[in-house]
Each structure stands twice: as structure tokens, then as C-alpha cells.
């Protein structure tokens, strides 16, 4: 490293601009990343569509015109109609409600519970760690969908129980990711430095450990949101998730399956596309967030001058 060391001016360098609040800095870095910005736009549209489904959807999601059943996409029905003559577009829009809600709530549960378990496990270590992680291993050893089926079967199928089941199933993933990161951050010199100043465990965890394990957790969250939506689709497809007539993307795929042979491709294509778009948007935003939250990456992004 070559440093112009004897020059006092170098030591006295001051930032050219006053500092922005940290969340704005993060946001502008996020938007500077085009892919992440695109993902954010798609997600925003999906969320708006879900929230204002009543206004956006051209038709009801329950009442169909049985005479105009299984119609291919047309000017009246952009995404065609299903076997009961219901508008597929409207059902996809209303389906966004269920899918996004399940994704958010289920992942919210696993994020909070899993992070807590991972933090305690990684920071405390010893027998606490052993007990918690073996419990997580047991949960983890079941195939995701199988465990979810078992939980829903015990709790009776409903939207709420689907969310709980998916939340439980995803908890060990977060616990492991967090624990692994905590184990390495805990040994960092800056943690020791903070302790040498007299910091309490609570302060060290909240100020140093959590922010430094955030990156993998954020990436995991975006991935898990996508998987949660897929799992919900799978459960609904198997008939133990969301119950009809409520539209869910997975449920629509289940219905569509019977009509693929008759050539009604629109019934499966559009809900499938909706799942694909959501999952992709989530991944793009997740990747962007990870970079935007890292101060080092952030200055690289900003120094490129892309805004």
C-alpha cells in the first residue's frame, strides 16, 4: 500500500457533502442498481394490485359466466376464463393477495423466531447451542412440503394454518444462517474492542452482531419469500392449503391441470407466470438490498456515478 503519509492534508480530508440519513443513503444505493430497481417496481405493482384488487380486477373472482367457460384470452377476458367461466385475470389479481400475504406472514414468523434462535445459539454457545441446533436439525431433516402437510393436517387446513406451517418449516433455515454468521462475527476484533470499552452483551448483539449478520439474513429472506410462495402454491395444489373458492395461484394451477389436455393453456400459464414474476422480483430486490446495506459496496455503487 502506498500512502501519501507525510502530508497532513491527507489526514485532514473532509467529506465534500453533508451526510444523508442512513436509510436514504441505502435507498439511493438500492435504486442505483437497475435490476434491483426493476424488481422493486414489479413488487410494488404486485402489492398495489393485491391491495386494490377490488378496484383493479375487471370481474369478480367467484362469479363466472358458465356459458363463456374455457374461453381463450380475448378482449373481454385478457387471460381467458376457467372451467366455471370465471375471469382468470381477476383471479390472478385476487390470488396475489393470498400469495403475498402467506409469503410475508410465514417468512415473518420464521425470520423473527429463526433469527432469535440463531442469535442465542451462536452467541451463548455451549449446551444452549447444542439443544437449540439439534432441535432445528430435527425440523430440518423433514422434507419441507411433507412437514408442512403434517402440520396443516394436525391444525386443519386454512389460510392461517398454512402460514403457521410454512413459518415453522422455514425457521431452521434462518436459525442456521444466523448462527453461522454470529459464530464468525462474535470472534471479530471489533466485538472484542467494544467489550473492552465496557459494552454489555445486549449492546454488542444489537449494535455489532445484528448489523453484521444482516446481509445473509436479507438474502435468505428474499429467497425464503419466494420459496414460501411456492410452498403455499404446492400446498394449495395438494388441496390442503388455501381452500376454494378463495383464489390462490397454486390452487389455480391445481384446477388448470385437468384442462391442459383440452388445450386450455391460459389457465395454467398466467398463475404460473405470476409466481415466476414475484419470485424473480423478490430475488432481485434481495440481492440489491444486500449490496446497498454494505457500506463498502455502497461507496462502490455510488462512485460509479449511476443514479
Amino acid at each position: 500500500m502506498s500512502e501519501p503519509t507525510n502530508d497532513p492534508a491527507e489526514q485532514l480530508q473532509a467529506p465534500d457533502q453533508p451526510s444523508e440519513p442512513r436509510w436514504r443513503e441505502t435507498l439511493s444505493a438500492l435504486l442505483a442498481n437497475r435490476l434491483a430497481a426493476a424488481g422493486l417496481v414489479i413488487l410494488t405493482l404486485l402489492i398495489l394490485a393485491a391491495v386494490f384488487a377490488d378496484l383493479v380486477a375487471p370481474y369478480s373472482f367467484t362469479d363466472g359466466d358458465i356459458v363463456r367457460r374455457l374461453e381463450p384470452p380475448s378482449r373481454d377476458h385478457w387471460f381467458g376464463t376457467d372451467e366455471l367461466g370465471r375471469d382468470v385475470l381477476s383471479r390472478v389479481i385476487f390470488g396475489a393477495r393470498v400469495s403475498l400475504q402467506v409469503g410475508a406472514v410465514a417468512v415473518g414468523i420464521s425470520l423473527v423466531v429463526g433469527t432469535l434462535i440463531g442469535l442465542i445459539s451462536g452467541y451463548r454457545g455451549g449446551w444452549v447451542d447444542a439443544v437449540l441446533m439439534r432441535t432445528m436439525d430435527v425440523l430440518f431433516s423433514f422434507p419441507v412440503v411433507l412437514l408442512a402437510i403434517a402440520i396443516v393436517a394436525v391444525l386443519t387446513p386454512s389460510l392461517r394454518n398454512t402460514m403457521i406451517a410454512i413459518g415453522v418449516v422455514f425457521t431452521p433455515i434462518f436459525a442456521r444462517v444466523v448462527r453461522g454468521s454470529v459464530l464468525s462475527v462474535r470472534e471479530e476484533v471489533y466485538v472484542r474492542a467494544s467489550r473492552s470499552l465496557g459494552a454489555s452483551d445486549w449492546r454488542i448483539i444489537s449494535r455489532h452482531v445484528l448489523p453484521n449478520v444482516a446481509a445473509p439474513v436479507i438474502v435468505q429472506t428474499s429467497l425464503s419469500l419466494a420459496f414460501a410462495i411456492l410452498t403455499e402454491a404446492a400446498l394449495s395444489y395438494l388441496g390442503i392449503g388455501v381452500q376454494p373458492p378463495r383464489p390462490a395461484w397454486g390452487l389455480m394451477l391445481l384446477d388448470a391441470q385437468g384442462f391442459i389436455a383440452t388445450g386450455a393453456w391460459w389457465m395454467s400459464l398466467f398463475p404460473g407466470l405470476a409466481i415466476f414474476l414475484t419470485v424473480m422480483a423478490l430475488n432481485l430486490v434481495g440481492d440489491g438490498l444486500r449490496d446497498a446495506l454494505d457500506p463498502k459496496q455502497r461507496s462502490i455503487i455510488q462512485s460509479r456515478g449511476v443514479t
Partner: protein
Amino acid sequence: MSTALLEVEDLHVHFSVGRGRDRQTVRAVDGVSLRLERGQTLGLVGESGCGKTTTGLALLRLVEPTSGRVVFDGTDVRALSKRDLRAWRRRAAMIFQDPYASLDPRLPVGESIGEALDIHGLHQGKQARRDRIGHLLERCGLHPRVADRYPHEFSGGQRQRIGIARALACEPDFIVCDEPIAALDVSIQAQVMNLLNELQQDLGLAYLFIAHDLAAVQHVCDRIAVMYLGRIVEEAERLDLYREPQHPYTQALLSAIPIPDPVRERERERIRLEGDVPSPIDPPSGCRFRTRCRAVFDTCERIDPALQEVTDDHRAACLLHGEVGTPVTS
């Protein structure tokens, strides 16, 4: 010589490694006694792995000592409760070797410094806190406005200055400097040393200055302790130690210092130490240095030499200066 700031007696730090039948004890620090007067600097020198960093950490209880006494200004540090220990840490700080690892990459550097103020409630209001952080940065040769920047935006030397500013935040009496310049460019080393010297004079700080060679500490220390494999092997006033090293290990370390004079440098006699430092899991019997000592004789493996006064105020642990020590029993 009655009211030392820091007095350490027979400090031991042992770690267990392995499990079950393979369980072994690493004697990282094995009976160290030190004394540090207010406003003075004690150099602690030894090869890597000799336990000098562990000693520094154990003094601040960043690593729990296994046994021994650490008395700081009349306070028995080992007897402090968790809560009192946190409050006591205001008085003793540490500067770390690696300036790249010692600052949280996700916090603006001002926050890293401000943390010390928050912990001990040392500021009144936001503006006062900002001013104090700015003042500390300035004291260490940086512009107050760099407080909002992140660690990766600084060079190694600048980061070390920030680390020093953080250590100063609580106005400690004592700072453990763990090889604070070893990771820096040679050109910056002098700057940081000067800064540390200035601060000591202005603030009356006492330093425990840890280093891996005698060259680094020759100008900064009042007294120097040489450490080998968990023990102090020689301890004396600085000039005394340089002029008349009593322990063969110190002599070897001293012979490794280059002389800034080509003629004398060419004639400099070098004592090369053969081999590696033995494992602290299974140290040699008797004198620990005997496996690499050029003056070794047969008694060395039978008696573990005690640290004893050789000349006035100059202690060494070597059987050449009288066979005083603990006979090996086996």
C-alpha cells in the same frame, strides 16, 4: 515503589483444547508477574505465540485468567462483578494490532468512538457528543468531519488513529497497546508512535506496550519485560536491558536489531535462534528456553529457573546467574 498503577502477580491463563481423552491444556500464560507505574510504559516483548497478547487481554479480563492477582489502582480486577467490571473498563483501554479488523465495518467511525461515551454516559446531549467525538479525532490528527465516514474509506494509519481516539474516549489511565504499529507501513509507524508518545505526556497515560521485537520498543519504554513461552524471562529498566542483557534469549533478540551504520552493521554478531518455539501444551522440563539456548548446560533440564534479581533492579530467569528455581520432579 509502593503504589504502582498496575500490579500483576503470578498470572496464569490456561486454555483447554480437544475433547474427552484428547483434552489438553495450553499454558498460554504461565505465571507472569508485572508492575507498571502511573504514566510509565512497560514493554512486553516476545515471539509470536509466547502469550504476550493473551497477557494483555487477561489484564483487562477480555480473556478470563485461570489464576493469579491483577490489582489496578487498589482494585482487585479479578474480583469485580460483571457489572463493576464494565464500569471499571472506563479506566483501562486497549489498542489493537490490526486496524482493519478492529473497527466495525458497518458503523461510521464517529459511532465507534461515540460508543464508549454512550456506555459510560459521558456526554450531555447530541451536540456535546458530536463535539467530543470531533475533539477526539482532532486530538489524533484527523479532521472532525470524518466522523461520518466508514472504516473502509481510511488507510491503515488513519484507522489506527481512530482506534486510538476510541481508546481515549473514556479518559483511561492505562492502555494496553497490542502491537499497534506492527501492521502499519514503516513510514507511518513513526507517526503513530509519536502520537502515542504525545498523548502519554499530555494525558499521563500508562502503557503496556506489546511488541514482537526489541527494535520496536527501544525508544518508547521505561521498562521492558521479555517473555518466552508464557513466562517472563527478563525484566529491567530499558537502558539497563539493552546495555547488559542477562538472559540468552534477550541477547538473541537484541542481536537481531539492525544497526543504522553500515560498518558496524557488517560486524554485528547475530545469534540465530534455531528451531521453533516449543508447544505451550507440553513445555520443555526445567528451563523452557533450553531447547534453543546456546548456553545450555546439563542442569537446565532439571531446574526450572526462577525470576530473580541479578543486578540492581534487573531480574532474569536463568541458571547462569545462580541455580535458583524449582527442581523438576518426575
